[in-house]
């Protein structure tokens, strides 16, 4: 855990130094100071906070819905948040409203999907994923329609691809509050999450109020995902892959898995953002492409190298 925190610090330093303009830490002038304080640092911090929120959301969803395939993207939570955020942008609402809308959209879509999959008893894993995919594609269609029909197209287009280009201190502040709240609640409920991972019946017999705990956890994951989406669009893969990688290293116990996922998610997105900025200077490529290219081979390597569940 300490090693991960160190790596996170190093990646943020890297994120500040590298970009279209290379910063030399020994030769600071006013232009460089502006770039660092107004552009690079908030951007690196935002990437870290968003990475942490998405990874913890993924871990929470995977355990609370007892489904290893869950993440905010696949379950349509990101799409629900995006549609609501896009609506807020079209209505020219201020940023805090955009985030609030995204949060409500995310909560609404997760509740719809969960209740569809629950028809006829306990939510079945396959139904959950199918309902998520269905709602997700429906919402993507709605989003595409909004992009085409709105003349405020540019800012919404940025949501679909996912980027940290809009980072500023206000967004960092907003991300910080929701990350702190979301991770704190997830940690408080980490024992309940462990029980939920065994199944509803066993969790009930261990004294967990299953419905209440799961609702709180789903809303917490939606809060983090919604805010993340409202600030930098839909970034897939982090929420799915980071918890899995961390589970292979620290185990499935959520008391350790949640902080480990938060740190690893932060590192992954900060580094992915650095790469997205320097790989095709002066243009940027969407950070989601980088996360996929970085994450997938590493994940396959881990799966092949060790059996599931072995500790590092």
């Amino acid at each position, binding site marked *: 855990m300490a090693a991960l925190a160190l790596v996170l610090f190093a990646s943020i330093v890297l994120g500040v130094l590298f970009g279209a303009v290379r910063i030399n830490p020994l030769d600071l002038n006013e232009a460089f100071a502006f770039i660092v304080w107004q552009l690079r640092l908030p951007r690196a911090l935002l990437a870290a906070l968003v990475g942490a929120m998405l990874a913890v959301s993924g871990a929470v969803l995977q355990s609370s819905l007892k489904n290893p395939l869950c993440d905010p993207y696949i379950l349509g939570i990101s799409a629900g948040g995006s549609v609501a955020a896009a609506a807020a942008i079209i209505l020219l609402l201020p940023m805090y409203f955009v985030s609030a809308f995204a949060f409500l959209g995310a909560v609404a879509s997760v509740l719809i999907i969960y209740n569809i999959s629950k028809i006829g008893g306990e939510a079945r894993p396959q139904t959950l994923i199918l309902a998520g995919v269905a709602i997700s594609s429906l919402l993507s269609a709605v989003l595409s329609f909004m992009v085409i029909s709105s003349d405020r197209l540019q800012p919404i287009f940025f949501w679909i691809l996912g980027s940290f280009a809009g980072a500023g201190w206000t967004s960092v502040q907003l991300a910080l509050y929701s990350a702190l709240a979301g991770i704190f609640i997830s940690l408080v409920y980490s024992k309940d999450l462990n*029980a939920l991972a065994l199944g509803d019946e066993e969790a009930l017999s261990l004294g967990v109020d299953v419905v209440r705990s799961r609702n709180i956890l789903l809303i917490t994951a939606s809060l983090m995902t919604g805010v993340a989406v409202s600030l930098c669009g839909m970034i897939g893969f982090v929420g799915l892959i980071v918890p899995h990688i961390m589970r292979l290293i620290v185990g499935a116990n959520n008391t350790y898995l949640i902080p480990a996922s938060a740190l690893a998610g932060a590192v992954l997105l900060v580094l992915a953002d650095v790469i997205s900025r320097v790989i095709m200077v002066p243009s940027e490529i969407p950070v989601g492409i980088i996360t996929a290219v970085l994450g997938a081979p590493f994940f396959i390597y881990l799966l092949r190298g060790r059996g599931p569940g072995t500790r590092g």
Partner: protein
Amino acid sequence: MLEAKNISCGYGQKKVLNDISFSVSEGEFVGVLGPNGSGKTTLLRALINTVPLSKGRILLSGKNIGLMNRKEIAKNISYVPQISEPPAGFTVEEIISMGRMPHVDAFSTYKQADFDAVKEAMIQARLLELKDRDVSELSGGEYQRVIIARSLAQGSKILLLDEPTAHLDIKYQIEIMELLKGLKNKTVIAVFHDIGLARKYCTRTILLKNGSLAGDGPAETALTPQTISNIFEISPIS
């Protein structure tokens, strides 16, 4: 200590249990037997209030269980479901520690008493040397012992078990039955398929057929060839 009073319940429109009454006192080892679909699992679920009753009530030391919260029930009754897929990534010790959940609240951590209870349960189920193993690497019999150890760590007086010996080799079946029989100051209610095992170990058997009580009494007298052939609809081999 645990009393079912005229209980009926089911899932949605489907009725499963019909007007069942019995009372279990401390220290009994009760085997619940009956053909597939007779309501054995549902009876256990009703006893820990995970299936709502349509009629009747269940009393735990005289208190209506329907009015108790989950933690209160969990402190008094533990439940071992039918053998399930072990969740990868948890160690034996972590799974057994979950049994202490009813005794700690969200903001606090496990205390010495909790660690002691977990260790004691691991000793009883002879799992001490496996405590750091990932549960997904265990055999079926070992994982079943882990879940039973978790229910012991829970510190409840009453243990409900749903087919604790299903899918196990005879050696592991006997091992689990001996473990259950050797428990001191515990009341055990367990569903069994194996009539022979139930007759050998249980102090009492409750027989179900089509959701109704079809027999109740000490194993030797309740499980006669006559009642067995009646309930399971087979003709005795003679």
